[in-house]
């Protein structure tokens, strides 16, 4: 069957457009700790799914759901149940150089 495989995983960095509508500081370099397995990684390196409906970001270690976001006609939604915490580097120089 003709298949338009838009569901292949992308990198979290590709969700930057949607996420930057919600977060003020650079979000792709923020470190997130997976609530499931404890693995900590930059959001830009998470596994991104959900194309077209929203951003579904999964841990690259355990596939656990870390965060989800969607832009709807009535606003933006963000859920971070699967994240223990998010850390934005205070060092702007480090942020710039990633």
């Amino acid at each position, binding site marked *: 069957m003709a298949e338009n495989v838009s569901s292949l995983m992308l990198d979290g960095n590709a969700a930057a457009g949607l996420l930057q509508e919600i977060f003020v500081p650079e979000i792709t370099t923020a470190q997130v700790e997976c609530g499931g397995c404890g693995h900590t990684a930059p959001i830009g390196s998470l596994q991104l*799914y959900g194309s077209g409906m929203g951003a579904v970001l999964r841990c690259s270690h355990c596939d656990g759901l870390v965060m989800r976001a969607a832009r709807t006609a009535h606003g933006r939604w963000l*859920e971070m149940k699967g994240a223990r915490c998010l850390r934005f580097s205070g060092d702007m120089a480090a942020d710039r150089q990633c």
Partner: protein
Amino acid sequence: MDETPISRGFRSRRQEQAPNNRVPPGQYVTTDFPVLSAGPTPQTKLQSWNFALQLGASLLGRWNWAEFEALPQSTAKKDIHCVTKWSKLDTTWQGVTFDAILKSVGLAESPAPYIMAHCDGGYTTNIPVADLIGGKGMIATRYEGLPIPPSHGGPARLLVPHLYFWKSAKWVRRIRFMEQDQRGFWESLGYHNYGDPWKEQRYDGD
């Protein structure tokens, strides 16, 4: 608010249909079958697949693949409508209707008004039972006469074509009856709780 600038010469590949009795408002007909997913494609082997009907702590029924295939089969030719605006007409499916499943566990009617579909990979979606009975919903195992490929939800997926296609949950493994409605995966992230394409119920608040 400023008028959105038009990109000279740009056209959608898909043809917008004037609203008619086949294509809901805002939809574009496609001949592709786009794949959307919220996670990695589960690769459940038929030998380990089973499907369960659950009410509270009780299991009302459970079928392995052979048992499920032995249930009365139905085919259906339906139009499907994705909230991301593509519609695909005349898709053919085969599987077991929700009515047949209820009947096979000896239920004349549903024990509760709502269900939550639970799927491999963790996806969920909630549907009123009234939208599944009377032939409105099935657990599908074939698409266009062939086993549904994993990327499209195989071995088995829910098929509820009169609602937006995110309700036709892929990789369905368990249907849990609920007394109270609860929101599933997309319904809890801003999408409409019911999802009628003919009323353009895409998002919560529509």
